[in-house]
């Protein structure tokens, strides 16, 4: 209970502003990369940048870095489920 109250004070406005600035820079990067003509790698590059942005939002805006361990575990389990669905779907697509 007390620990939880302390946690909410863990992140200051400065951290949020830094995360926001990083997200802005990464948005610029992902738009800039499209002008490089990477062909098939373009989508991979876009997804890598989007995943980094998502990680920043999860860790700082959504406080996962400061939560109990069970929260990141639950998120990983959900993402694992998503990847399982994705892989199973593509196994069907590729062997059609």
């Amino acid at each position: 209970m007390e620990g939880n109250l302390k946690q909410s004070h863990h992140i200051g406005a400065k951290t949020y502003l830094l995360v926001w600035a990083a997200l802005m820079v990464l948005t610029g990067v992902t738009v800039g990369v499209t002008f490089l003509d990477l062909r098939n790698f373009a989508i991979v590059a876009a997804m890598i940048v989007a995943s980094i942005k998502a990680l920043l939002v999860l860790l700082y805006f959504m406080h996962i870095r400061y939560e109990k361990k069970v929260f990141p575990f639950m998120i990983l389990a959900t993402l694992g489920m998503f990847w399982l669905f994705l892989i199973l779907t593509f196994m069907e697509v590729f062997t059609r």
Partner: protein
Amino acid sequence: MNIEQHTEEHYDPVSNSMGMWLFLFTEVMLFGVMFILYAMYLHTYGIDFRHGSGQLNLVMGGLNTVVLITSSLTMALAIWALSLGQRSKSFLFLGATIALAGGFLVVKSFEWAAKFHHGIYPGSAELLSRSPGEMVFFSLYFVMTGLHAFHVIIGMILITVNAGFLAKGKMSPERMDLMKNTGLYWHLVDLIWIFLFPLFYLIV
């Protein structure tokens, strides 16, 4: 600190936040299935998808990305301000978040209106005359950004409710789970857009 009063009522902030996360996981799966559909059709109709993506307005999409990420910042700052007991500051940040969310919807509606103007909407004669890949691309575009915009509207309502509770003095730094959970919801809406933006606007 009036901890006794809280334990009496079985107040449990960790469970409150976990319940919200469980709901967010169902949202991840809801959008996740659509992302899988998108990936499958991108694999099938790669060239048509690139052609469709080239017709979307990159400037408007980029602007909306900036607007939504900034609204995530103001939402986080609203929670931060209230946790320090600064109610009026928190109220202002909530107001800014609602304004930015409204801005996002305005830009989005201009984009959709421009597409409708060119005869591009699900089932339109213009779209039916195009390649199957482009039809699928624009169908996914309207369904996914439409469902996302619907989430933005729900988020705006939730944030307004929070602002109302805050103005009535019904929210305190000790009891602010409603605002924290609203924040989680709002950040998820932002997260989904972070993936929607490159998939629809940047695959040229």
